[in-house]
């Protein structure tokens, strides 16, 4: 009897996954679409490849459970009359009402509000309930301008001019017809049930020179009161951040390739953009190169999972982080409840990425009233608040261990790289050495 492995040989090129992919596309006649974000195995350097080096004898730690370590966060100090003041450095990123259910949007707003964080609107405009429940609400101005409303713009505490998104930079949004229903269609001025494909370019400006004027327009429309954010997917980060800063942004948001999405071409999620770790390093270097580090605030997004990721991003240069997918998980995304409905989608809890179908078993990425009812707004809001609080406490305990009385005092010197790649990307020493192996664009050796 021959051993099975002798004749059941697998191609290294046409693996079972690739064969399945080809056969699915041979049926579909288009690229595959799904939600969630990249599912690739993480073979690139991530925040996990860094470690903090807390105080021992060369530095003195703060008492981990007692001494004050401020997480208060100030954004938009460059030009705005009213910068944004938050109690925590973790914010809720823009996710559209449409991609998310009403209950999910309101729960995120309420949860963020409980701990003094912020919420952001999304592609589709402002939901009045999220305005009512958000002390701090950031209004996204996206290329599609779905739901654009000057009255809503003037009710916001910050304006985010979105150029792109980490999960799918260079492409527009996507909302399949199963979600373009009733009030969502009406708010977006779209026919019921269309597969909405948003534009990638803004309708009234193209490049950074025009964007200077666009930013001035937004300031005039809001009487220079609120900060203007510019959000971009992480690609040519060093150059793009410099262009956004020169264009007059108060705050720059860089969204790495691990960021999530409600729906997009799968290949964009898997094969475009640069990782969040690299993005934060390039972004900081860009602002330092312009002499604007600290004056223009930096928010990092894209696969931030916990306070450790957030603390490392902040040590590398971020003033705050956005969370999206982690916030949805606090709402119950991928929780093992209503398991039969996961099975109906052909998936399992902890593996679901079917946000695009509108059949979310836990009522988050759906417009189906019955599914939506599964998400109790107040209970979900409490979980979001707890997560934000927990993540903040994780940042604080690391900061105290590093002797910092303010979470924003974490810096690259508090970190070491666990491997060469992370050292080269971040420009910080490899553990066990005093050497820095490389450093990204604009990197300069620290004194």
């Amino acid at each position: 009897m021959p051993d099975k492995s002798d004749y059941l040989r697998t191609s290294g090129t046409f693996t079972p996954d690739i064969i399945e992919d080809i056969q699915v596309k041979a049926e579909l006649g288009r690229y595959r679409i799904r939600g969630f974000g990249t599912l690739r195995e993480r073979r690139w350097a991530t925040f996990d490849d860094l470690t903090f080096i807390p105080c021992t004898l060369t530095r003195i730690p703060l008492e981990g459970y007692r001494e004050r370590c401020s997480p208060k966060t100030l954004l938009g100090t460059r030009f705005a009359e009213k910068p944004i003041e938050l109690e925590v450095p973790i914010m809720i990123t823009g996710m559209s009402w449409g991609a998310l259910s009403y209950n999910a949007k309101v729960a995120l707003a309420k949860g963020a509000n409980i701990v003094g964080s912020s919420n952001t609107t999304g592609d589709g405009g402002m939901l009045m309930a999220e305005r009512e429940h958000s002390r701090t609400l950031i209004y996204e101005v996206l290329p599609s301008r779905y739901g654009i409303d000057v009255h809503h713009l003037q009710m916001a505490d910050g304006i985010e001019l979105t150029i792109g998104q980490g999960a799918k930079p260079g492409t527009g949004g996507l909302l399949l017809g199963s979600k373009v229903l009733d009030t969502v269609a009406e708010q977006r001025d779209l026919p019921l049930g269309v597969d909405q494909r948003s534009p990638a370019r803004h309708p009234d400006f193209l490049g950074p020179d025009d964007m200077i004027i666009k930013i001035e327009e937004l300031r005039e429309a809001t009487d220079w009161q609120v900060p203007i954010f510019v959000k971009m997917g992480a690609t040519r980060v060093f150059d793009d951040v410099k262009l956004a800063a020169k264009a007059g942004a108060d705050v720059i948001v860089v969204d790495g390739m691990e960021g999530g999405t409600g729906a997009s071409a799968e290949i964009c999620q898997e094969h475009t953009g640069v990782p969040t770790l690299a993005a934060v390093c390039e972004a900081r270097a860009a602002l330092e190169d312009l002499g604007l580090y600290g004056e223009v605030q930096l928010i990092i997004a894209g696969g931030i999972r916990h306070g450790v990721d957030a603390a490392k991003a902040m040590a590398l240069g971020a003033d705050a982080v956005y969370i999206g997918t982690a916030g949805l998980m606090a709402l119950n995304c991928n929780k093992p409840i209503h398991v039969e409905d996961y099975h109906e989608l052909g998936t399992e809890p902890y593996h679901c990425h079917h946000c695009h179908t509108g059949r979310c078993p836990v009522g988050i990425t759906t417009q189906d009233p019955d599914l939506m009812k599964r998400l109790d707004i107040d209970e979900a809001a409490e979980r979001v608040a707890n997560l934000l609080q927990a993540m903040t406490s994780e940042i604080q305990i690391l900061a105290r261990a590093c002797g910092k009385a303010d979470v924003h005092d974490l810096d690259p010197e508090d970190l070491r790289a666990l491997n060469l790649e992370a050292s080269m990307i971040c420009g910080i020493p490899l553990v066990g050495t005093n050497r820095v192996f490389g450093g990204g664009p604009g990197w300069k050796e620290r004194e």
Partner: protein
Amino acid sequence: MADIICDGKTTRDINAEIKRLIANGETDICMRNPVARHNLGVAILQSVKLTFDGSVGYYCAGMVDGPTVEIKGSAGWGLAESMMGGTVTVEGNAGNGAAASIRGGTVVVHSDAASRLGVSMKGGLIIVGGNCGYMAGFMAQRGTMIVCGDTGEAFADSMYEAVCFVGGNIAELGNDAIIEQPTAEDLTFLESTLSQHLPSRVGNSQAPIRNFKKVVSGRKLWNFDKDERSVWREAL
């Protein structure tokens, strides 16, 4: 009528002065010598009359809701972008992206409009007395666009429920755009609308109302359909 002399004033000064006058009850304000400054008259939300006595730069009357704006010159990019209500009239030409993303109101350009006219419009009425450049009406969702002259390439590409009327030649229809016979109601609408906003165009022997073409969406791009290969090859 109140005058604002724009010479020596910044955009911020001019807009602040407009808002101050409106707050004081002024309903008819003329900006003298605007020298094509950008972002003038942005986000005005009252039913007042604003006259710009010369050309203006980018985003003039952007995001307005209610005013009647007259520009006695030409306008730069993004004229009246994201407007929600009111009327914006340009005596001369308009730059790229005029009336982009408008959700309501009326934008009238007496002469020509450059590329990307009415991109992503979500409502309202756009009237161009002359020609328009490429990609006019791209992804237009709702509302009506009337171009009395010729259009550029990719006209009315990927539209949803917007309706376009063209008096001259269409250089090239965009993806999923189709020409339809105007109805009697359409012709009546054109006659009355042009009589109101561009009276000089009515009776124009080079573009009589009966010759206007109506362009709408073929609706083949509204939902993914693998059998519409030729349309989707362009759009995907």
